C-alpha cells in the first residue's frame, strides 16, 4: 500500500511539474510584458526597458529556453520570481490564497449544506411539489453563468440600498477602507462585504450538489435495507437519516471534498466582479498584465491543489464507505 501511494505521489509531482513548465513556456512565448512600456510619456528608452525586464527575467529578447532555465533555477531554490513591477510572486501568492480562502470558506460550506439538505429533501418528497420546484430551480440556476448571477445580485442590492436610503449591503472589495470603528464594527463591515459573494457561491455550489444528492438519495430510497430499517420498527426520520442519507452522502461528499480542497484556487468571476483581490482575480490580472512568472506560479498551485483534492477524495470515500473501509 505504501509503495503504491509513493508511486502515485511521484506521478502526481511529475504531472504538476510538466503542467507548470508547459504553462511557463506558453506564457513566456505568448505574453508580452514589454507592452507595459507602450504609450508611456515620456517614452522609456529601449535600453532601460531591457534593463528592467532583464532584472525580472521577463525580457522577450532572451531566448525562451534561457528564461525557463533561469526560472527553474529559482524554483529549485524556493524563489518563484518577480512581477513585472518588481513585486515578489511568492509573497503575492500567499496573501492572495489567504484572501480567496476567506471568501470561499463560508460560501463553499453553505453551498454544501444547502445542496445536500435540498437534494435529500427533494428525493424524500419525490414527484411532489417541493421536489419539482427544487429541481427546476436548481436546473435554472445551473443555467445561469456565475457572472450573470453576480451582476444581477449587484443590481438587486443597489435597488435595495436606494430604497432603504443608505448603504445596507456593500459589494465592492473586502472591507471599506474609510470605515473607522472598533473591532466588532470592523468585523461587521467585513461580513457586510461577504454577503453578496457568499450568496453567489452558495447558489452555484448548492444547485450543482443538490441534483447529485437527489439522484443518490433516490437510488438509496428504493433499496432493501432502507425498507428493512423501517420494517424492524425504526422511525421514518431515523431510517431516512441514519440509513438512507448516510449512504447517499458518499457521492456528494467526494464532490464537496473536491470543492473544499480547491477553495484557495479562488473564484475567478466572483472575485473579479465583487473586487476581492484573491487568486481568481490575480489570474485574470496576470494574464492581462503579461506576468509570466506569476502565471506559472498560479498553474503550479492550481495543479497541486487539484491533485491534492483528488487524493483527499479517495481518503474521504474510504472513510465513508464501509466496503472500502473494511477491505
Amino acid at each position, binding site marked *: 500500500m505504501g509503495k503504491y501511494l509513493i508511486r502515485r505521489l511521484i506521478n502526481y509531482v511529475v504531472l504538476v511539474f510538466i*503542467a507548470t513548465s508547459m504553462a511557463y513556456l*506558453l506564457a513566456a512565448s505568448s*505574453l508580452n510584458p514589454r507592452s507595459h512600456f507602450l504609450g508611456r510619456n515620456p517614452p522609456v528608452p529601449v535600453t532601460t526597458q531591457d534593463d528592467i525586464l532583464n532584472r525580472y527575467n521577463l525580457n522577450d529578447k532572451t531566448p525562451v529556453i534561457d528564461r525557463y532555465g533561469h526560472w527553474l533555477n529559482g524554483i529549485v531554490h524556493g524563489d518563484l520570481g518577480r512581477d513585472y513591477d518588481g513585486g515578489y510572486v511568492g509573497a503575492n501568492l500567499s496573501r492572495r490564497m489567504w484572501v480567496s480562502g476567506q471568501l470561499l470558506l463560508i460560501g463553499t460550506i453553505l453551498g454544501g449544506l444547502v445542496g445536500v439538505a435540498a437534494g435529500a429533501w427533494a428525493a424524500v418528497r419525490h414527484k411532489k411539489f417541493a421536489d419539482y420546484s427544487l429541481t427546476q430551480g436548481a*436546473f435554472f440556476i445551473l*443555467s445561469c453563468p456565475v457572472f450573470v448571477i453576480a451582476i444581477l445580485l449587484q443590481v438587486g442590492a443597489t435597488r435595495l440600498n436606494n430604497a432603504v436610503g443608505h448603504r445596507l449591503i456593500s459589494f465592492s472589495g473586502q472591507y471599506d477602507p474609510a470605515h473607522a470603528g472598533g473591532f466588532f464594527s470592523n468585523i461587521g463591515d467585513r461580513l457586510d462585504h461577504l454577503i453578496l459573494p457568499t450568496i453567489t457561491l452558495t447558489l452555484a455550489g448548492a444547485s450543482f450538489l443538490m441534483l447529485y444528492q437527489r439522484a443518490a438519495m433516490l437510488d438509496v430510497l428504493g433499496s432493501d435495507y432502507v425498507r428493512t430499517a423501517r420494517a424492524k420498527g425504526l422511525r421514518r426520520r431515523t431510517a431516512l437519516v441514519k440509513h438512507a442519507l448516510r449512504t447517499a452522502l458518499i457521492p456528494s461528499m467526494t464532490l464537496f471534498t473536491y470543492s473544499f480542497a480547491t477553495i484557495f484556487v479562488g473564484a475567478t468571476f466572483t472575485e473579479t466582479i465583487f473586487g476581492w483581490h484573491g487568486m481568481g482575480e490575480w489570474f485574470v490580472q496576470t494574464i492581462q498584465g503579461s506576468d509570466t512568472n506569476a502565471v506559472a506560479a498560479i498553474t503550479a498551485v492550481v495543479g497541486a491543489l487539484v491533485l491534492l483534492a483528488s487524493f483527499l477524495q479517495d481518503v474521504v470515500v474510504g472513510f465513508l464507505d464501509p466496503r472500502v473501509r473494511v477491505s
Partner: protein
Amino acid sequence: MTVPSQELIGTVTAESGIQGTAAIDETRVPSRGRIIWRRFRKQKSALFGLVLLVILVLMAYVGIHLTKWGYQQPDYDSFAVTPNGSHWFGTDAAGGDLFAMTMRGAQKSILIGLLVAVLATGMAAIVGASAGYFGKWIDGVLMWIVNLLLVIPSFLIIAILSPQFHNNLTLFVVLLGMFIWQVTARIVRGQTLSLKEREYVLAAKYMGVSGPRIIFRHILPNLASLLFIDATVNVSVAVLTETGLSFFGFGVQPPDISLGTLIESAQQSATTQPWLFLFPAGFLVFLLLAVNLIGQGLRDAFDPSTGVAI
C-alpha cells in the same frame, strides 16, 4: 436472374399496399430512434427545451435580418435609448442596436458551442475507445495525456494563448475542445474494457476484423447513448466557457461580438441601463437552459429506468 426478384418485390409491395397497411404497422417493431423520440416527446420539460432552442436559433439566424439595423451600424440619432419599436432591445451608449448585437453574439456562441461539442465528444470517443480496446502501452500513453490535461487549468491555458488566436475561430474552437473531453474519454475507456469481452466483438476480432474497424463498427455504436448525452452537455459547457473567456477579453475579441463581451460591457451600467445587461444575459440563460433541458430529456429517454436528474 434479376427479373424474377424484381417481380417478387413488386408483388409484395403492391399486396401490402392494398390490404396489409394497418396490420403491418401494428406489428412493425419501431426503430430505436423512434422509441427514444417517443420517450423524449413525453417529457414536457424536454419538449419545452427543444421548442425554446428552435426559437432562439431562429431569432439568432433569421431574426437578425428582420431588423433594419446592422450590428456594426450605429444609429447616431438615438444613444442609450430604452427598447422601442425601432430598436427592439434598445441601444447602447454609442448608438449600437442591441438586438442586432445580441443576435450576432448569439450566432457566435451557438456556432462555437456546436463545433466544440462535436469535436470534444468525437475526441473522447476515439481516444477512450482506443485506450480501452488496444490496452498495453497505447492505453498508458493516452491515459497519461488525459491525466496531464486534467491537471492543467484549461481556462488559464486558453487565456494565455488568447493574444495568439486573435479572432481565429478555428483555433479557438480547437483549444476549447481540447480541454473538455478528458472525463468522457475515461468513461468511454471503462465501457470499452467491458464491451471488448462481449461475444460479438470477440467474433469480429477472430474473423480478422481490424482494430479501428471494430471500434467504429461495434464498440462506439454501442456507446451511442452515452456519446449523444455527452455531446449535449458539452454544448452547454462550451458556451459557458466561451462566454466566460470572452467576458474577460480572452475569447472573442472586439470588434467581433459574443454574448460574453456584451455582458461585460453592460456590467458597469447594469443598474442605470438595465436593458443592456438583461437582454444578452437573458438570451444566454435561456440558451443554456434549453440545451440543459434537452440533455436531461435525452438522458431519461435513453435510460428510462433511472428517471432521475443527473
